[in-house]
C-alpha cells in the first residue's frame, strides 16, 4: 500500500497568519479569543469569538477577486498558497491530472449569504451582486484552489459540520494511498463569525459568553473561531525522490456514525472512530503519545470524548496527553480539524505539546492528562486528531513522525 506524507502546511486563524506564528502561539498558550468585532454585535448575547484580526482583504486580493471570494475562500487561498510554497510543487502535465483538492467547510460562503439576505430582507433591495451564487457556494474555495494551482484531478468539498476538515483530509489521504491521485491539497476553511452565523448558534444554548475551557469542571460551552488550514498530502516515494521536506506521515484514518442523535455525542461512535484509525494505521494503542481532542468545552462533548478515549486506550489513557487547542483558536467548525492538525505536526516535529488553556478546575469525568495551561516538551512518535460532529459523524486521523 502506498504511503502518504505531508509536505506543506499553511494557515490563517486567530492565532496567526501562518504556521510559524500559530505554532508560536500554541507553544505560548496564547488565547485568540476576544470581543467580536462584527456588525450588529449589540444584538447578540454571545459577544466573543476567535476572529482573524487586522485582516485586510485588499492587501491580498484585487477587486475582481474580492467580488468572487467570500472570506472563507480568501482564508483557504491564503493557507493553500503557504502550503504549496512550502511543498515547492508546480502542478503541470501529468501531475496536474493526478492532483486535486478536497476541502472541508460547514457554512461555506456564510458571510456572503448573511450580507445579501440582509440586503434583500432588511434593506429591501431587489437586486444583488451577480456573483452571489458562485461566491457563497460551499465548493467555491476548492474550485478557486484548483484553478489557482491547475489541479485537474479529483476535487470537491465535504460538509460534516465540525468534522468536515477531518473527513476531507481523510478522503485526500485515501485517494493517494489507493493510487487515485499522487498529490492532494486538503484541509478546511470556515468563516461563520457574522451576525446570522453567531445568532444561529446562540439558539442551541451551548455557547460560552466568557471563555472556552475544555475539560475544566467550570466549562460552560464552546466559542467559535474562524480561519483555514491547508496541507499538501503527497505520495511518500514521490516526496522522497524529489527531496521534499516531510512534516509528518498520515498513518491512518477512520470514520464512524453514531446513528443515534442529531446533537448529543455518543461514546461508542467516538470510540469506534478512534479504534478504527489505530487499526487502519496498524498501530497498537500504547504507541499513541498525544491526542488532539475535539474538546469543544461543552459539557456533553468533553465527558463523552474522555470516556471514549478511556475505553479505547484502557490503562494507556493515563499515560497519553490529550489537549484541546480550541481553548486558543476557538472552534473553527468545518475548518477546525485542519488547524488542529498543526498542533499534531508540532508535537511530532518539535516535541512541543500544545496546552489546553483556561483549565481551572479538575473534572472527575475528564480525568486525563489534558496538558493544562502550559505547553509541554515531550517526544511523541504517533498522534491522533479527533473530530466528532453534530449529526454523530466522526472522523479521526493518525499521524506519525518520519
Amino acid at each position, binding site marked *: 500500500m502506498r504511503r502518504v506524507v505531508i509536505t506543506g502546511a499553511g494557515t490563517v486563524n486567530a492565532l496567526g497568519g501562518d504556521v510559524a506564528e500559530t505554532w508560536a502561539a500554541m507553544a505560548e498558550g496564547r488565547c485568540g479569543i476576544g470581543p467580536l468585532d462584527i456588525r450588529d454585535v449589540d444584538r447578540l448575547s454571545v459577544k466573543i469569538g476567535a476572529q482573524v484580526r487586522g485582516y485586510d482583504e485588499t492587501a491580498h486580493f484585487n477587486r475582481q477577486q474580492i467580488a468572487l471570494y467570500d472570506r472563507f475562500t480568501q482564508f483557504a487561498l491564503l493557507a493553500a498558497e503557504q502550503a504549496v510554497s512550502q511543498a515547492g510543487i508546480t502542478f503541470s502535465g501529468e501531475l496536474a491530472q493526478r492532483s486535486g483538492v478536497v476541502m472541508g467547510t460547514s457554512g461555506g460562503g456564510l458571510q456572503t449569504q448573511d450580507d445579501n439576505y440582509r440586503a434583500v430582507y432588511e434593506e429591501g433591495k431587489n437586486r444583488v451582486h451577480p456573483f452571489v451564487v458562485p461566491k457563497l457556494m460551499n465548493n467555491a474555495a476548492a474550485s478557486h484552489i484548483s484553478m489557482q494551482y491547475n489541479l485537474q484531478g479529483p476535487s470537491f468539498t465535504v460538509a460534516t459540520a465540525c468534522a468536515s476538515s477531518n473527513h476531507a483530509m481523510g478522503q485526500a489521504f485515501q485517494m493517494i494511498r489507493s493510487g487515485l491521485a499522487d498529490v492532494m491539497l486538503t484541509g478546511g476553511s470556515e468563516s461563520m463569525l457574522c451576525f446570522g452565523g453567531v445568532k444561529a448558534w446562540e439558539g442551541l444554548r451551548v455557547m460560552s459568553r466568557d471563555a472556552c475551557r475544555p475539560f475544566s469542571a467550570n466549562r460552560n*460551552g464552546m466559542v467559535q473561531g474562524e480561519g483555514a488550514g491547508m496541507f499538501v498530502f503527497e505520495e511518500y516515494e514521490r516526496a522522497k525522490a524529489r527531496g521534499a521536506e516531510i512534516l509528518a506521515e498520515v498513518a491512518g484514518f477512520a470514520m464512524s456514525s453514531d446513528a443515534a442523535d442529531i446533537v448529543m455525542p455518543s461514546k461508542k461512535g467516538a470510540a469506534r472512530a478512534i479504534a478504527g484509525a489505530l487499526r487502519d494505521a496498524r498501530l497498537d494503542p500504547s504507541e499513541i503519545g498525544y491526542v488532539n481532542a475535539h474538546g469543544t468545552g461543552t*459539557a456533553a462533548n468533553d465527558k463523552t470524548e474522555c470516556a471514549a478515549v478511556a475505553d479505547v486506550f484502557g490503562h494507556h489513557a493515563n499515560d497519553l496527553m490529550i489537549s484541546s487547542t480550541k481553548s486558543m483558536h476557538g472552534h473553527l467548525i468545518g475548518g477546525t480539524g485542519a488547524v488542529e492538525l498543526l498542533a499534531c505536526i508540532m508535537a511530532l516535529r518539535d516535541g512541543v505539546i500544545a496546552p489546553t488553556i483556561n483549565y481551572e478546575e479538575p473534572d472527575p469525568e475528564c480525568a486525563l492528562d489534558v496538558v493544562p495551561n502550559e505547553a509541554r516538551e515531550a517526544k511523541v512518535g504517533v498522534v491522533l486528531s479527533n473530530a466528532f460532529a453534530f449529526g454523530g459523524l466522526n472522523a479521526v486521523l493518525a499521524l506519525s513522525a518520519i
Partner: protein
Amino acid sequence: MMADTVHDKVVQILAEQAMLEPGDVTMDQSLEDLGIDSLGLVESIFAIEEEFDIQVPFNANEPDKSDFDISSVAAIIGAVQGLVTAQKG
C-alpha cells in the same frame, strides 16, 4: 400577567413539546417524566421566550447553575412567572 395565564400557556407549550394533551400534564412531573430531552428543553425555552417576550437565562452546559428552575412543571411555571414579573413589570 395573570398567574393563571402563565400557568396555562406554559403547560400548553410543554404539552405540545411532549406530544400530550394539556390535561395529561401534572405539576409534579419532571421533563424526563414528560419525555422531553435536552433538545426538547431548548426548544421549549425558545417557545416560552417567544410566547412571553422574555429572556430566559439558560446554558445547556450548566443547567444546575441557571436561576431558571427546570426540576418540575410547577418549578418551570414559577420561574416563568418570576421572569415575566421581573422583565415585563
